């Protein structure tokens, strides 16, 4: 079976998976304790006005009708309207998702860049001080919860040294006429540094340890010895041959980890007051704002599934031994 057929088959699987996720989300929120109407309908309204309101949200319909409406919404990625703010869920996601992605992708990019590089060198220089220190740091990074480190960082650098903002994504009162204003971006980056660094530090441990182990395994293989006998340059053996082969498992693990990192943004966004989608999702659940909660959950789930799909494809490009049979 060729690559094209594989893509088609996986895309069909993808659609089925997403449908299952959407259905599970629908049932999950309907079976949770609590009634959305008590949150969104003013108790002082008269009975008739109240029913009209409930009807306008479609909450009077039987479950299966609600489900059909919901699936149609999901299929068009619109997710309906927020119970709470009356805005389209699509607009809410469009507002919050880029913020979360900005934070997550920045942290993720640096975490994997540094983690993989250090992992390569640590594996290459086995039994060196460099290896021992980097493994120690990676274990520290993995063991300290990021929200806890976040609080410490805020306490030291924010409250005490006063070099980072305590919360938020932008300073109040900053003037900007467009999104391409330099000052606006500098201000955003200044707000971004602390949460991205804390998150990046936490995320870094995984690729570092994984890459080191993978390097050790590859370095023990025969072809590395032959590479040395061939008189290739040290750096070429290390990166072009050893690291290139060692990278294969990191790609899969990395894509899955990125999915979870996007979904796991809730804590870090809460600690640093970053107005992202994770925080919005929690608030939506607390408000029984079904459409927003479903929409955000679905986007997170979709991210994980899509990234898995991309990892599968990437593997085929990176490793010539992988066939799509």
């Amino acid at each position, binding site marked *: 079976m060729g690559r094209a057929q594989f893509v088609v088959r996986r895309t069909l699987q993808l659609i089925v998976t997403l449908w299952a996720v959407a259905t599970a989300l629908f049932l999950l929120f309907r079976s949770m304790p609590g009634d959305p109407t008590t949150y969104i309908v003013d108790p002082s309204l008269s009975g008739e006005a109240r029913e009209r309101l409930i009807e306008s949200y479609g909450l009077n319909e039987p479950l299966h009708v609600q489900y059909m409406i919901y699936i149609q919404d999901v299929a068009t990625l619109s997710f309906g309207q927020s119970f709470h703010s009356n805005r389209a869920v699509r607009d809410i996601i469009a507002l919050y998702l880029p913020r979360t992605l900005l934070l997550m992708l920045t942290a993720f990019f640096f975490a994997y860049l540094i983690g993989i590089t250090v992992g390569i060198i640590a594996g290459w220089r086995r039994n060196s001080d460099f290896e021992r220190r980097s493994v120690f740091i990676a274990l520290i990074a993995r063991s300290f919860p990021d929200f806890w480190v976040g609080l410490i960082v805020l306490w030291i650098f924010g409250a005490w040294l006063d070099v980072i903002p305590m919360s938020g994504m932008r300073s109040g009162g900053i003037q900007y006429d467009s999104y391409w204003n330099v000052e606006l971006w500098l201000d955003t980056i200044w707000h971004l540094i602390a949460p991205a660094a804390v998150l990046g530090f936490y995320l870094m441990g995984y690729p570092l340890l994984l890459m080191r182990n993978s390097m050790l395994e590859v370095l023990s293989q025969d072809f590395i010895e*032959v590479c*040395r*006998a*061939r*008189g290739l340059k040290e750096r*070429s053996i290390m990166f072009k041959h050893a690291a*290139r*082969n060692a990278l294969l498992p990191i790609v899969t693990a990395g894509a899955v980890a990125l999915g979870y990192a996007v979904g796991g943004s809730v804590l870090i966004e809460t600690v640093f007051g970053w107005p992202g989608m994770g925080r919005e999702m929690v608030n939506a659940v607390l408000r029984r704002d079904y459409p927003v909660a479903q929409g955000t959950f679905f986007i997170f789930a979709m991210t994980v599934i899509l990234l898995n799909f991309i990892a599968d494809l990437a593997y085929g490009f*990176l490793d*010539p031994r992988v066939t799509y049979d």
Partner: protein
Amino acid sequence: MTTLLDVDDLEVYYETEDGPAQAVDGVSFSVEEGETLGIVGESGCGKTTLAKAIIGILPHNGYVNAGRIQFRGENLTELSDEQRRRRKWEEISMIPQSAMNGLDPVYTIREQINETIETHRPGTDRVESNRIVDEMFDLVGLDPDRADEYPHQFSGGMRQRAMIAMALSLDPSLILADEPTTALDVIMQDQILNRIEGMQDEVESSMLVITHDVSVVAETCDRVIVMYAGQIAEEGPVEEIFGNPYHPYTIGLKRAFPDIRKSNQDLMSIAGHPPELVDPPSGCRFAERCPLATEVCRTEYPPEMEFGELRTYCHHADEIDEEFRPVADRAETWEQTEAAEAKNAKATEATK
């Protein structure tokens, strides 16, 4: 003939938890231009370590403790890493023990041979290096079109041949073949051996063939070194070593291989194991397993004895012709060693 490689009193040690293991201990030999030299010996006798030391790819815990490796009059052990690297493959290439896994799985074979050529000869254009790849593939009997495939698309024997093609690509003066046929089935072994023999006719490189398989040596080599426990036991021309050896170990080794002309010959093994290399015996390392061993063998290092073109390291080599050779074929002879007696004593103990 001029001397290409001259190894002089070489010691290669491995760092272990119990102290240095003397994997190669005081080995001297030379390889002439155009000559094929074989090194035989059982597993762990230091032959692969010797090869790795010569090409310069000892593992991290291995090091040259003493001695010289002269290559074209240049002591390789004194060169800097960078100088050494430039001579690898260009001057000395290898067909590794595990040639089947010697190729990087994520690059095509052409890419890997090109990489080797371009590393050593910067400025070689792609057309030229591609031409070399095609030529080498032709030489080893592979279809040049298949050079663009990945190693996993090749069978074991084809990978071995691709490895030989790569070993020849820079036209080196010396090729180390470390167990070139061990991982292959008998038919493939024969093909590869024929290929190596054919190659010897076509290219002028010297070869060092390292193997535990006596038949490989008999088929390809001019001269042979028999190694035992990190040292040379005996050295000489192939016909002499297999026809009329003077070291009891060589005689025993010969007896352990079937001879096609003697139909009902009993194959024998030499009782016991090679000594520990961390703290080896001070005398002859074979003494424990040798039927001729006397007190002097256990305490004193054996002298070099010469018999025509043979070089033998044994205290009793001059007694071989009269006393040992007539009885060497008898199983009882090989029962009279320290190792065999210890084994028998253990067996009797067990039956009691």
